[in-house]
């Protein structure tokens, strides 16, 4: 009976997969979730960015795997001496995708750029409220500082800012700044079906949208007229005929699918599975240092953390290396600087303070706390690349602090409540972290660590150092990257000397893929591109 069952199952499986054998190449990536909106302008989620990265182009792109800015729909750009006007020259001959409701009659031009940004900034724009509310990333990065956008000619646009934004070009690389088709918008308005605009996306990207079934899959097809293909740029061109995102929320199941050959790439594996992945002869694992960091947000508006000697004592008391080894298990490296090593502007000279409980005790005694003190330590309630196991890390920190006389009571909250309380500054020591969306140091350092951010509550450590803040503001007022790098390096030194940041680790992210996958490069910022990826037959 068992043999019969085995034969029946095998036959069934064969029939089920018979259709996969075709002349076309299909790359299947097991992804973790559904895009929350097919129009990336409304989204701040990396899952949506992954999807949007395939369909849309932006004016400026970010080199895959690095933080260098490279031309995309804008071929070149220049900034005025006062930093307020950016003039972008647009690429010619860029084709739009088509679908059953829309066949483009013209190539991409300045009208599309105006349409894209006007839709997000102008509440009277006919599409402003269609398909969603809140252009989170645009509002956060540009809205209040963008004065207007002008069309100089069909292939030149001018962005006029109210104040200089050094990270302006970098903000244009994020998926919510994807360029949309003005002609498609008008066509859908004329047909009185504006909702279709978001449901059946049209872009200029290397892949065109085929279908999306929420929580099941997103399907794409290579776009033969993509500008990079026409220009012969192989590593920015689709190298497979079809791309499928097989939505698989459970990381163990993603890995099972990878091992069973049902997908070629499985994103975000469990750290615990890494040894098994590395031991599998059919798999290859790529690793890259993440643009993020986990840290202890030590509330410096509260006593005794306003005393630098107490902060230094905490730094010496915690055995970070042991914590990283036990908690990250190879998926994290010790962080020392506010700009991660994956990003330009990182200060490589900052060395971690040594684990030295005796020195910690001496510093506490110097601060008048020879008998230690009692505090609360919030354990991160979610799993993140920058902190894989908050509870375990908290327990290790608690033990280290107890050894120098500090009694830390571990507590935690449900994630939403945790965020709310931390933003309100209710914590003493809270585990937290930041993830960069675009390749510019200012994104986190400006909005998360300055005195202005401490006043608004966005700076959860409530640390305010005027000299540091001035340097960060200066760096934000110039577009000269060399000068900015110098300013950021000095600012990071100040934060380090002030023992203000309590950085734990930068994540190391792993992507397992099957051996037949060629040309895959792990992207650090925003959505993962699948251009240049092919399958060895």
């Amino acid at each position, binding site marked *: 009976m068992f043999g019969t069952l085995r034969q029946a199952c095998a036959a069934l499986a064969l029939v*089920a*997969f018979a259709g*996969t054998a075709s002349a076309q190449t299909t790359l299947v990536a097991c992804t973790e979730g559904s895009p929350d909106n097919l129009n990336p302008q409304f989204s701040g989620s990396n899952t949506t960015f992954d999807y949007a990265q395939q369909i849309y182009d932006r004016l400026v792109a970010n080199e895959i795997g690095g933080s260098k800015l490279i031309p995309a729909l804008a071929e070149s750009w220049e900034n005025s001496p006062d930093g307020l006007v950016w003039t972008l020259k647009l690429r010619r001959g860029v084709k739009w995708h088509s679908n059953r409701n829309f066949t483009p009659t013209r190539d991409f031009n300045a009208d599309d750029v105006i349409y894209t940004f006007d839709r997000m900034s102008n509440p009277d724009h006919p599409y402003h409220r269609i398909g969603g509310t809140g252009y*989170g990333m645009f509002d*956060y990065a540009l809205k209040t500082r963008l004065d207007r956008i002008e069309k100089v000619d069909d292939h030149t646009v001018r962005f006029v800012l109210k104040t200089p934004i050094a990270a302006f070009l970098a903000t244009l690389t994020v998926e919510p700044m994807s360029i949309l088709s003005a002609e498609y918008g008008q066509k859908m308005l004329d047909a009185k079906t504006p909702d279709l605009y978001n449901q059946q996306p049209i872009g200029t990207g290397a892949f065109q949208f085929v279908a999306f079934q929420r929580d099941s899959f997103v399907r794409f097809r290579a776009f033969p007229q993509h500008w990079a293909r026409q220009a012969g740029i192989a590593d920015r061109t689709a190298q497979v005929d079809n791309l499928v995102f*097989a939505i698989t929320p459970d990381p163990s199941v993603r890995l099972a699918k990878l091992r069973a050959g049902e997908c070629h790439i499985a994103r975000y594996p469990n750290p615990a599975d890494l040894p098994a992945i590395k031991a599998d002869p059919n798999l290859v694992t790529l690793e890259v240092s993440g643009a993020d960091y986990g840290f202890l947000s030590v509330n410096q508006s509260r006593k005794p953390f306003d005393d630098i000697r107490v902060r230094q004592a905490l730094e010496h008391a915690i055995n970070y290396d042991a914590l990283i080894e036990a908690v990250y298990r190879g998926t994290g490296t010790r962080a020392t600087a506010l700009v991660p090593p994956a990003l330009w502007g990182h200060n490589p000279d900052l060395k971690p303070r040594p684990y030295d409980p005796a020195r910690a005790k001496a510093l506490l005694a110097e601060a008048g706390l020879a008998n230690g003190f009692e505090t609360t330590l919030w354990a991160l309630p979610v799993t993140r690349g920058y902190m894989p196991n908050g509870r375990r890390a908290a327990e290790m920190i608690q033990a280290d602090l107890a050894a120098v006389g500090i009694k830390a009571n571990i507590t935690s909250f449900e994630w*939403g409540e945790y965020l709310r309380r931390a*933003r309100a500054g209710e914590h003493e020591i809270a585990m937290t972290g930041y993830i960069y969306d675009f390749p510019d140091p200012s994104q*986190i350092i400006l909005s998360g660590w300055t005195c202005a951010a401490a006043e608004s509550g966005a700076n959860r450590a409530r640390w305010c150092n005027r000299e540091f803040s001035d340097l960060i503001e200066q760096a934000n007022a110039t577009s000269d990257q060399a000068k900015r790098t110098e300013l950021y390096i000095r600012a990071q030194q100040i934060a380090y000397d002030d023992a203000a940041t309590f950085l734990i680790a930068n994540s190391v992210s792993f992507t397992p893929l099957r051996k037949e996958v060629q040309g895959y490069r792990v992207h650090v910022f925003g959505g993962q591109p699948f251009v240049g990826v092919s399958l060895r037959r």
Partner: protein
Amino acid sequence: MIRWLLGRAAVLLPTAVAVTIVAFMLLHLVPGDPVEIAAGERVLDPAEHARLLRELGLDRPLWEQYLDFMGRLAVGDFGASVRTKERVAAEFMVRFPATIELGLFALGFAVLVGVPAGMIAALRRGRTTDHAIMTAALTGYSMPVFWWGLLLILFFSVSLGWTPVSGRIGVAYYVEPVTGFLLIDSWLSGEPGAFASTLSHLILPAIALGTISLAVIARMTRSSMLEVLNEDYVRTARAKGLPFRRVVTVHALRNALIPVVTVIGLQLGHLLSGAILTETIFSWPGIGKWLVEAIQRRDYPQIQGGIVIIAALMMAVNLLVDLCYGLLNPQIRHGRR
């Protein structure tokens, strides 16, 4: 009869209102809000936070939000998801067939395996077969679904390669939804291999989901069968010289199945709740997974709408059952029992 039916329906009205209050109030008691959760670690300016809450209407007093919710509910509007902006009712209807399809298959598996297993255990009472079946049933009953599901995947899909790991259909196929029941749609599509692919994708999730029900059904069949086998009419039938097989299948089993059928009905509710975990493990796009994600993201309209629709469906089913009882047994509708 009509008066009785109206009476039953009238009882449902306060129940429905209670469901809306519970769904609404409990949800808002849970800390956090959709804006906070969506921002996550990102720096969220307090003014921007307040503006987005205002835009979603979440800055108003709770009672005002509830009345607004009820007002829209009265005209059949369940609102739109905060995250996707799609209508909640439409999203529900897209996912519901997937859950029903999986639930029916799981139930089919539980009945087809559970009833014969229970019968065999009863007929071999006290012997090794009985002990083996009952031990297996107890193990199945105690098994956490998420662990059992992963075990099935690792054994049947990864090690043996017999079944697909997860999803509803192989990536090589794209079937346009017609009924939402993929098994039917893939059959209608006429695409070679699509139906077999859909069927093969149902096997493991149906086993994972149906195992607990199978255990319950097997145990109930066994005890019911044992009871019936000791009845006088069974003894009489055997004394008359009827073949043992005929006594069991015709006389005993039919009567033994009466309580089993009741249990099978009860299992439908369990299958819906169990589907939440099964759908997550097997990447099954049903309502369980949809609701869990909505709770994680504090997508109030989606959770409220989903709960109210499910509650309404359950109430409608209960009303239908009551109606059937009433039709079958006049004593019930005349209030004598």
